[in-house]
């Protein structure tokens, strides 16, 4: 192998770029939905009626203890048997979001449980409704406590999106596989794409750190944890 063997890979830059855009789209959409739904699930699992609590517990246990590949195959290949047919990109987004929601729920729940009960009681005594108290008083400091953990989880989702190539979603890994099978430059294709993932992950982490400074610890912050 020498440098010239990378040329075949670089020639395919338009498909790498398309794959990159798809990977970024999958990551951003599922991250946003996953954090929002994860927060709602955390609320439900702590304050909801018993049935809701049990349902969320079951859901979290199931999706945190089964392989993501199995989940994505089930959603793409299995659901049609139940009459629900999703196209590859939708199936990928659903799989990523459902998986992330389960993890995000646990992370946020940990943050809430670390918040002293007195804070919630104080909010109630000021006349805030439970939902107001939860989202205005409890959630901001809870997020501050767990934002670093959340950041890692979101980076994991970025990397896990590579598995979407298995159901023919044309993201970065899919394009790398394509280049490898067209040119037989397996090593070269995978090393280039691995470096792109590395760059993406570092950028994404920096972006989340910025989001954290601006929205989690910044002007909306009510607690003192930093």
């Amino acid at each position: 192998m020498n440098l010239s063997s990378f040329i075949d890979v670089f020639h395919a830059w338009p498909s790498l770029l398309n794959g990159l855009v798809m990977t970024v789209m999958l990551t951003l959409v599922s991250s946003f939905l996953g954090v929002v739904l994860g927060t709602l699930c955390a609320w439900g699992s702590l304050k909801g009626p018993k049935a809701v609590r049990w349902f969320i517990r079951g859901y979290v246990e199931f999706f945190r203890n089964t392989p993501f590949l199995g989940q994505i195959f089930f959603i793409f290949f299995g659901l049609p048997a139940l009459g629900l047919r999703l196209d590859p990109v939708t199936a990928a987004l659903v799989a990523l979001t459902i998986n992330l929601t389960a993890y995000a729920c646990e992370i946020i729940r940990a943050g809430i449980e670390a918040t002293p009960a007195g804070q919630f009681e104080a909010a109630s005594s000021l006349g805030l409704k439970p939902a107001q108290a939860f989202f205005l008083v409890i959630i901001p400091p809870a997020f501050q406590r767990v934002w670093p953990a959340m950041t890692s989880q979101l980076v994991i989702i970025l990397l896990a999106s590579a598995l979407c190539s298995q159901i023919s979603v044309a993201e970065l890994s899919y394009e790398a596989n394509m280049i490898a099978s067209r040119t037989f430059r397996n090593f070269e294709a995978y090393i280039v794409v691995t470096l792109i993932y590395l760059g993406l992950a570092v950028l994404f982490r920096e972006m989340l750190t910025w989001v954290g400074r601006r929205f989690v610890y910044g002007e909306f912050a009510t607690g003192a944890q930093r």
Partner: protein
Amino acid sequence: MTARILFAAAIGLMATLGTVPAVADALDDIIARKTLRVAVPTDYPPFGSVGTDMQPRGMDIDVANLIGEKLGVKVELVPVTAPNRVAYLQSGKTDLTISSLGKTEERAKVIDFSIAYSPFFDAVFGKKEPPVKEYADLSGKTISVTRGSMQDKELEDLAPKAEVKRFEDNNSTIAAFMSGQVEMFASGTPVAAAIKRRNPDLDLELKIVLANSPCYVGVVKGETRLLDKVNEIIREAKANGEIDRLSVTWLGAPAGELPE
């Protein structure tokens, strides 16, 4: 000045060493090891699948055993998927790839091919509806195919407007069709026949033939002695009817004329 010449010579030497592959004869290695490592499919009946005894079985497995028997060595079967069967050979993880492998210009750049051992037609399969008369009828249709397979390349050349969904192995390609995620799938005639045998009621028919692409044994590039030996064994098996017998067993018809 002398230092510079020496330096240049050293660079030249390194460049030469870097480009010439290590000289070790694969055939001698196999005999010494008493084992022939063969990459075979396990997701591609009737060429290779896993039987009820959990052992690989099929046309390709029998050809691997035939070659091992003639060489007088044990056969170690290495299950591979379509996208990585050439890479296994390239990286020296196996001595041969017997995995219903068709001959393409790109593949011939990185591995050597034996003479053909089995007939194979690539085609697009699907339900009775809609009818497909010519390649243009495939435009806009969703078709699943295994990445890096012959059919992948052929679809791209013959039906560039088809919406091709690429999967990592043959099972996923077929599963995509069976679950209704795609309208059609591209594969080999023997594969579709095997599916039909298992599911007689399935609405499945051949829509259009993509190519006639017989199967060849893949050999590590540059191993001429091993290649000659494999060719000799296949030629003999063709002459004494062994290949036809295997073809009748697995593919349901004699092998017929195969290209050298």
